[in-house]
């Protein structure tokens, strides 16, 4: 391995790049490696600044203005948008839908995905086939998923109603996406279908890291399936568990596309979530400043949950 390669491996990040320690032996080489690191890091950093950091601060700025999205001037109004936001019943209704999404949309893929992953890991035949099948919804575009499930739920010719009629449950048939009582759950079911395959794959990856000798030893010691799961498997995949929890929770606060495709937030506002409300305010009602304020709330909520979960994971790791 060359000195430069070792340096690349040992030192990462721009902050370190600027403070590279120099050795007597190869100062010039270290300079070269520093530039090499910069060469690799800067394009990604530039893109990150361009597409993440700059729009983020742009959104912060817009959220403090009364901009309509079109006018050349953006009047600064301080925190007024946030004051209005917290008194806006539509905002709280949308947030309540996000919270329902966070609970159901996080729990359901884990409840479905974890047992499936354990079954696949424990040596089912056709494991690859099942794993691929579970993953298919993940690779489908959201629009396609929306169209498929729109057909399934269709009140005129939908598979779901036809199935219910076939088994004698005609009284259960309805326009699933058109009734406030069922619309949110129907969209949630679609989202769970679309994401549980990814959860299965993550858990499977985590399970690969568990020492099988431990399982065998526990079995020899008389541990039953639940005890082996409780004391070996679950602790073994705890980091993956936290990761899955984090991405599903963060996803719950930024969900937009699947709802937009299936119901556009309707009927009425019964499936409206924060991202959809922000979109409506910014692009439909021409309140770009207000829409930006809603977006900031989404960002803060997502960040808060992510930080709490990551700190929890770190603490557990520190506790051993």
């Amino acid at each position: 391995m060359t000195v430069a390669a070792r340096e690349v491996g040992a030192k990462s990040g721009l902050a370190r790049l600027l403070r590279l320690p120099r050795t007597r032996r190869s100062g010039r080489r270290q300079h070269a490696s520093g530039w090499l690191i910069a060469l690799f890091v800067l394009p990604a950093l530039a893109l990150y600044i361009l597409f993440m950091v700059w729009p983020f601060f742009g959104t912060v700025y817009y959220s403090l203005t009364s901009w309509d999205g079109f006018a050349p001037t953006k009047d600064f109004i301080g925190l007024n948008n946030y004051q209005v936001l917290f008194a806006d019943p539509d905002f709280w209704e949308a947030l309540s839908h996000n919270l329902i999404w966070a609970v159901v949309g996080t729990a359901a893929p884990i409840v479905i995905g974890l047992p499936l992953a354990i079954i696949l890991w424990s040596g089912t035949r056709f494991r690859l086939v099942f794993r691929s099948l579970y993953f298919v919804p993940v690779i489908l575009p959201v629009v396609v998923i929306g169209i498929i499930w729109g057909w399934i739920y269709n009140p005129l010719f939908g598979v779901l109603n036809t199935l219910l009629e076939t088994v004698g449950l005609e009284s259960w048939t309805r326009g699933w996406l058109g009734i406030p009582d069922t619309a949110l759950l129907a969209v949630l079911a679609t989202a769970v279908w679309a994401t549980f395959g990814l959860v299965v794959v993550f858990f499977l990856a985590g399970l690969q890291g568990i020492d099988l000798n431990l399982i065998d030893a526990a079995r020899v010691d008389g541990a039953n399936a639940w005890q082996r799961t409780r004391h070996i498997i679950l602790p073994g995949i705890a980091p993956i568990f936290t990761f899955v929890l984090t991405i599903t929770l963060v996803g719950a606060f930024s969900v937009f596309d699947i709802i937009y495709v299936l119901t556009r937030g309707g009927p009425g506002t019964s499936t409206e979530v924060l991202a959809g409300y922000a979109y409506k305010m910014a692009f439909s009602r021409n309140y770009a400043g207000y829409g930006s304020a809603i977006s900031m709330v989404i960002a803060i909520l997502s960040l808060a949950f992510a930080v709490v979960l990551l700190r929890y994971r770190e603490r557990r790791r520190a506790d051993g």
Partner: protein
Amino acid sequence: MRSLTLNARLAALVMVSVITLAACGGGAGPATPNAQSATPESSEAAATDGGSSAEPGGVAEITFLVGIAEDPEIEQLAQQQIEEFNSTHENIQVTREALDNDQLRTIIQTRLDSGDVDVFGYDTGPGFGGVLARAGLVADLEPAYEEHGWPIFDWAKARCTYSGVLSCIPGAVEEVGIYYNKTLFDAQGFEEPATLEEMVAIMDAFKGQDMVPLAFGNQPQWPAGHQFSMTLSNLVGREGLDAKLYGESPWNDEDTVRAIDIYFRQFQDAGYFPRDPNAVTYEDANALFYAGEAAMLPTGTWLVAEITDNTDFEVGFFPFPAIDGGEGVFPPAGLGGGLFVAEASDDKQAAFEFLNWLQSEEVVREWSLQTFNVIPAQEIDSAGLDVSPLFQSVLDDLAQSSGETSDFGYNIDVLTPANFNDEMFTGFQEVLNGTRTPQELADALEAAYQEAAERGETLERPEE
């Protein structure tokens, strides 16, 4: 040596940062002076001095941004129309870019500001085209009107005029009414209903035969706005609508509540719609009618071509019938949208020439009327046209609107601000579901209107 190296690194970093930030500037920074200067002078100069950025003898390239057609076949024909223009105009080449209408709304400001759109189609209402005009993003078309003498009706030009500046060419004139299966009506001895009672009797009869009387699908929310336009227009008439649109009478009066109640509560409770209409898409509702499973289809004249292509029975069209205690029959009619020229366009003269070609009699006859079955807002000579009987009847009906529109109502959502429309669209779904009363919705509409009025997004009554 050490400080030199560090400085060099810092300098490189600063340079990269500056370049990156400079690249960001176009999207989020203040609008360019160019975008702010929608002055008559700048557009006039373009109309008279040649305006095109193309070198003499060169080719002016025009980007034409529009909402995508619902029917892929129509979309293909629209592209062919552009190809015909390009093949007959060596010095101007138009690139047509069709986007989903929702997507168009989200990117229009950025695209216009960036100057890479020359001509675009957009809604003409004060909350749509009016907002763009106020932001200085669209060109003044008065000089082009004067130069080319486009024979657009005055009432239609008024819809394209914002703060006294004529900013677009009106698109198609559209009417909202009810298509019906004429073959079925004839077989059962029904005639076009003249009153609401007659229509209710017909709907009851079809319902008794396990048919869907009215194929109304409201999943996309906007169709309800058209239905509301029909009942309210008939209840308050043209003058009553004018008063509401100009802020002279409230939206939460008895007539508005009744207009909502008739269509969204009484019709729903009576079972005249497909089951759970909020879950039925517009396309599925249309398909019910095409398949002969629904007797009537409430929608607009923009669907004539598609209906003609998809039905194997005779189709008729009638306006929503008179409502007892109302003003009579005032079928909602208005502009479907308009064509604008971007103020930041480098090739305004070429853009005006393209618009001029679209307005020419030959193109209007061949493309607008015969191919797309849409009716432009100008005098039409329909003699010798090869069109379907359904379109001919619509054409004859709308011909009454030439220059004088007092016999028609309005398609309300074209003229009302965006927040009002949002309130309508979600509100009608809630009334259909029974989670909101017509009175509550009418109150919300009035509040939305007042809010928009404060922002200057409502119509101003034209000076006599």
